[in-house]
């Protein structure tokens, strides 16, 4: 047993013997890799450990008690909802307690005030279906339908539908947070009379801190309950059809329609996004990477490579497909109107509509995230920026250049500059750069590329969303701060004085570089002191 008998018994008394185990077989089932997000990389191999014990609380009170025990006995712990976020959401030190939150799956939906209150065990596809059944919807983020809604909301959680309804943090309302020392804090209006309707007040609002710090990487406590704002949808049902793996939602085209447009250039795509926003039309928009199209067409890994090998730098650089979602939220006439305006915009920019299937496999109930591993076996979104479209596009182009010298081991992608889109009616621009590799080959250079993107961001002044949790803090902190790293550690110290909540985050990538010999040649910054469990 990895933790002491005494500690185990105390923990067992909280949840009961059925919901705790230190059995090595049970614990092995919680290993991060070898497959998964960012798994098969050096970070996963060096930094993740099998938990020493797994516990499954049912209530917030149980979570508090567990966390307090961890503080009392100095047991490192990590919260865990579905475990999809790969290496970073798994134990990083030996004998860590993994707090599996799947039993916390209470769900309430307030139809009148358009919000749902969920616990960590509720996943997006459950939430989306419950919402849609009542004429509402939510954005299912890139993590896919099967991730915990809470974990995704405090981390990433965007999709092309974020064009209209924005980033996830806009929709976090009253929230319940168990701090790293076990104290319970209720955010927003939840602090008063148990009403979670309002995120901003009257109680404290730590949402920015929670999200901006390390989000779902979980080192600033455990979110045990969250009210999530739902948005009004349209009344007609999106009809499920097909048999796996060919399942899809049939769209009611009088109300919901995807249209793909061939555009003459990347600039024209960008202009279209701006013009749509000015006209305040559209429910979603994104640039379609040719890569996605090939994935969608291929019936297997082998067919993917057959199709992909027909592409080249020229086909990629001349492929400009814009995918637009129209929804007649208020009426059929709204959709008709928006389609006419959209057609005018596209025509003026020299684009034309392509034949588009009246179905949706990817975005309303997204689960394609899992398909990202099909082609190569290894995948991570190495970076994303949320800034302006003007910022987002060169970000991807720069990365594509940088990537060339790391290909292989990265998958050959003919200079694909990732994908971009606009958020919040083009008030924000987004770029995401995805990389793929074969985890059964030597992956040292994959790790190098990861780190080099950070240096590229510093060199080119790109604002990255992954500053804190995915890069060496002592590399990025001084460059972006100048005291960003110190501030982050001060916050951590204040909330987690015993440093038991998912150590060594936020210094995990620093620790990785220190421990991985093959990373040493890239190390040209100051080393932090990393507190290690004795």
């Amino acid at each position: 047993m990895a933790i002491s008998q005494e500690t185990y018994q105390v923990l067992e008394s909280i949840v009961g013997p059925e919901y705790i185990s230190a059995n090595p077989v049970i614990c092995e089932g919680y290993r991060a890799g070898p497959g998964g997000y960012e798994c098969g990389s050096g970070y996963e191999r060096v930094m993740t450990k099998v938990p020493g014990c797994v516990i499954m609380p049912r209530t917030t009170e149980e979570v508090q008690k567990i966390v307090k025990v961890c503080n009392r006995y100095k047991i490192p712990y990590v919260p865990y909802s579905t475990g999809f976020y790969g290496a970073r959401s798994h134990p990083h030190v030996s004998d860590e307690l993994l707090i599996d939150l799947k039993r916390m799956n209470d769900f309430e939906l307030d139809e009148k005030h358009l919000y749902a209150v969920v616990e960590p065990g509720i996943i997006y596809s459950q939430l989306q279906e419950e919402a849609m059944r009542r004429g509402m919807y939510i954005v299912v983020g890139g993590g896919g339908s099967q991730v915990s809604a809470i974990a995704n909301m405090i981390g990433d959680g965007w999709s092309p539908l974020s064009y209209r309804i924005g980033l996830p943090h806009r929709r976090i309302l009253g929230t319940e947070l168990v701090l790293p020392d076990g104290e319970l804090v209720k955010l927003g209006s939840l602090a008063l009379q148990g009403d979670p309707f309002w995120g901003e007040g009257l109680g404290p609002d730590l949402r920015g801190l929670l999200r901006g710090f390390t989000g779902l990487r979980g080192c600033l406590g455990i979110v045990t309950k969250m009210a999530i704002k739902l948005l009004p949808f349209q009344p007609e049902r999106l009809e499920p059809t097909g048999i796996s793996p060919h399942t899809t939602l049939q769209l009611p085209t009088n109300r919901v329609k995807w249209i793909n447009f061939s555009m003459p250039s990347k600039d024209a795509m960008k202009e279209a996004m701006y013009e749509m926003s000015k006209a305040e039309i559209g429910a979603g928009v994104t640039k379609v990477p040719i890569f996605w199209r090939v994935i969608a067409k291929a019936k297997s890994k082998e067919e993917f490579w057959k199709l992909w090998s027909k592409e080249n730098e020229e086909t990629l650089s001349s492929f400009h497909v814009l995918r637009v979602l129209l929804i007649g939220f208020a009426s059929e006439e709204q959709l008709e109107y928006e389609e006419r305006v959209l057609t005018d915009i596209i025509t003026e920019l020299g684009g034309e509509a392509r034949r588009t299937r009246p179905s949706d496999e990817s975005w309303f109930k997204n689960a394609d995230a899992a398909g990202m591993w099909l082609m190569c076996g290894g995948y991570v979104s190495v970076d994303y920026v949320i800034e302006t479209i003007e910022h987002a596009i060169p970000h991807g182009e720069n990365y594509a250049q940088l990537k060339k010298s790391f290909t292989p081991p990265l998958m050959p992608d003919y200079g694909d500059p990732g994908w971009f889109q606009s958020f919040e009616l083009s008030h924000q621009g987004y770029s995401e750069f995805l990389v793929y590799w074969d985890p059964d080959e030597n992956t040292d250079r994959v790790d190098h590329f990861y780190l080099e993107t950070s240096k590229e961001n510093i060199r080119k002044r790109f604002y990255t969303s992954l500053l804190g949790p995915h890069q060496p803090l002592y590399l990025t902190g001084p460059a972006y701060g100048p005291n960003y790293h110190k501030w982050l550690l001060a916050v951590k110290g204040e909330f987690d004085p015993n440093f038991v909540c998912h150590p060594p985050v936020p210094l995990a990538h620093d620790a990785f570089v220190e421990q991985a010999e093959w990373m040493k040649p890239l190390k040209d910054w100051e080393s932090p002191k990393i507190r290690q469990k004795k």
Partner: protein
Amino acid sequence: MLKGKTSLDVTQVENFIFDMTKCIKCKGCTWVDHIYMPGVKFSTRCPSATRYLFDSYGAYGKMRIGLALVEGRLDYSHELLKILYACTLCGACDVGCKRNLDLEIELTLEALRIKAVKDGKGPMPQHKKIAQDILTEHNRFGAPHQNRTKWLPEGIKPSPKADVLYFVGCSASYTNPEIAQATVKILDASGTPFMLMPDEWCCGNLLYSVGMVDEARELARRNVDMVKQAGATTLLTSCAECYRMWKVDYPKMLGISTADLGFRVVHLVEYVDELMKKGTLKLTNRIDLRLTYHDSCSLSRLSEPWVPWKGERGLWGMVNPPLDRRRGTNGVYQQPRDILKAIPGVELVEMPRMRENAFCCGAGRGTMEAFPDFALWAAEQRLAEVKEVGAEAVVSACPWCKDNFAKVVSKNGEKLKVFDISELVLASVEV
């Protein structure tokens, strides 16, 4: 092995190391397909992960544990064997994974059980007792072999020689004779001559399912030879488990394709559907019943034909020659529904989890024998869904499902009716 020569041979667990290393914990194996997700209720399709909760009981846990076992990082223990065997091998995880990742989860789980037996650790003690019964009495109940054909109803006489050979199976021969009787009466009503095996033995489902592949292969050889000797062109079953054995696992163990068996394997629902379409069987009697259909795993998502494959795995994990993966898409889903809808008076309502997303009844693949509480729990979960849609009856096409549902209904004193589809077909054609 990760690169190089590989195959789908389940007797070599090394063939599935690639699959065990590539699970990404998306948990598509546990949750209902997102497109068909019914909401917060009835949202999972893996009985094992739903019942035991620890990740270790989901396919994602089993892949990691299996890998650790193969690599020597874990040894056998009571908990490890429970994780391997408290699983219905229902295939839900397999179709879920192949929605996006195409990993061979079902074959990996089978291979791990075969390894456990080879290593002298498996199967579970209860399985060993039944295996002995199968070897001595040729049925899984240990009932006297000479009683195997006692179910034959008066007035029905099998032909000594016919194109159709009805393989009755242990359940319909001993514990669920109503299914065998209904089946032969349906054949009789449609004017279909049929024969029985001169000496029918167990199909070996339990043996194969718990990893006793050598014993199961012997039975497969024997049974296939018997059919060939009998000269039948169609092997008919009324049991989903027998069906899967004959159609998928026999060829798998014998290293041949389903198409190379030398005869066609059909389930009663396929046969009845064909007869109805030809017009030789008409469902005319009215049955006023609001019912729901439970997809038996071995008839639905696990029933696609087997094609052996061997080749090489290379860069990016690509295989050569191409592998036509069994993803559960072409299971027997529609025929039973068409049959039930054709019965006058029947109102067929679907449960939230249907077809490839169906929640297993819990009985099959050695679960009922070694983990009876778990098996009954799974049936109870499924019956909650039956009640949710307001059905008066649940209909399946497998005696294992019928039996397990009936046990729960009886235990709880419920009014719900449990039928095998053969009984309803017979009631609709019988004069």
